[in-house]
């Protein structure tokens, strides 16, 4: 008998929870760094999904795409943090609501 491990559904529920928490973070926080962290959290939730399905269908695609997602997350963090630093230099604040010049 193969060793039983937590089912795909359990992983999907966990991933859904993390995604929802990340989404709430993105919407309700005003500190830009925390917002960026919440986005990373959402990306990681997606990774959990991919790995779970990769195991479910016994195919490596999920794991390969997880690596691509991690790559994108790394690039996004680098550019995002650069923008935050520049915003801080401009306004001495990293509040998301402050950056609203294009609001019209």
């Amino acid at each position, binding site marked *: 008998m193969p060793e*039983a*491990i*937590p*089912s*795909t*559904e*359990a*992983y*999907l529920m*966990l991933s*859904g*929870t*993390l*995604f*929802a*928490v*990340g989404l*709430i*973070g993105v*919407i*309700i*926080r005003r*500190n830009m*760094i*925390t917002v960026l*962290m*919440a986005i*990373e*959290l959402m990306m990681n939730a997606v990774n*959990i999904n991919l*790995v779970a*399905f*990769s*195991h*479910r269908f*016994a195919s*490596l695609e999920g*794991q*390969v795409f997880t*690596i*691509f997602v*991690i*790559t*994108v*997350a*790394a*690039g996004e*963090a*680098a*550019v995002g*943090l*650069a923008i*935050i*630093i*520049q915003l*801080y230099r401009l306004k001495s*604040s*990293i509040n*998301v*609501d402050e950056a609203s010049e294009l609001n019209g």
Partner: protein
Amino acid sequence: MNAAFLVFFVVGTIAVASSILVVAMRNPVHSALFLLLTFLCVAILFVVKDAEFVAAVQVLVYAGGIMVLFLFVVMLINVRHLPDDRTLSRFWKGGVGVGLAIFLLLATVVRTGTYHDQNPNKKLLRSTASHRVRKVTNPDGSVTRKRVVRHRTVGNSEAVGMALYQDYLVPFEVASLFLLVAMIGAIVIGKRELSAPEEETSPDFILKRMETEKDVKEAMSA
């Protein structure tokens, strides 16, 4: 209950709890530390699902790179001295509502039994496939070419590596290009341009001295 379930419940609970703390913490440094904890927990969950390579990459990239970068920026800005009278956005109630709605939506999509694990062939996660064309003599005497797929059992890292470099070569190269663009973008955006007075007062004697040093070096090597 076996070990895998125990690990899942303990680590999963920690992951969810610390992810909530990421969003709830006032101080970004604390948020970053809890995010780090979440990433480590997720890496452990990857190992449970037979993805050691991805787990190692997760720890290496997130813990070793991204979170250090976050902490670096937090300290560079030194958020301690920023006024944080209002942490939450104006429409935080709506935000929580949207989040809960998304969670409910996802929860209803996930139905028990829909993704029933039909004993997945775990060997496929640790094997590379190579195609070979073999000549086959049919019963009627004609010779046709037949494609044969051979699975060779290797480690998970080698299997992922083969998949990356064989089946996903173009996306892989695009990803490398993406990283290059992201790097250039980050440098261009983050660079601080010298203000006009700074530019003007860039001391002449340093430039002069550099010239002299260069001359002397040339004289030395000649």
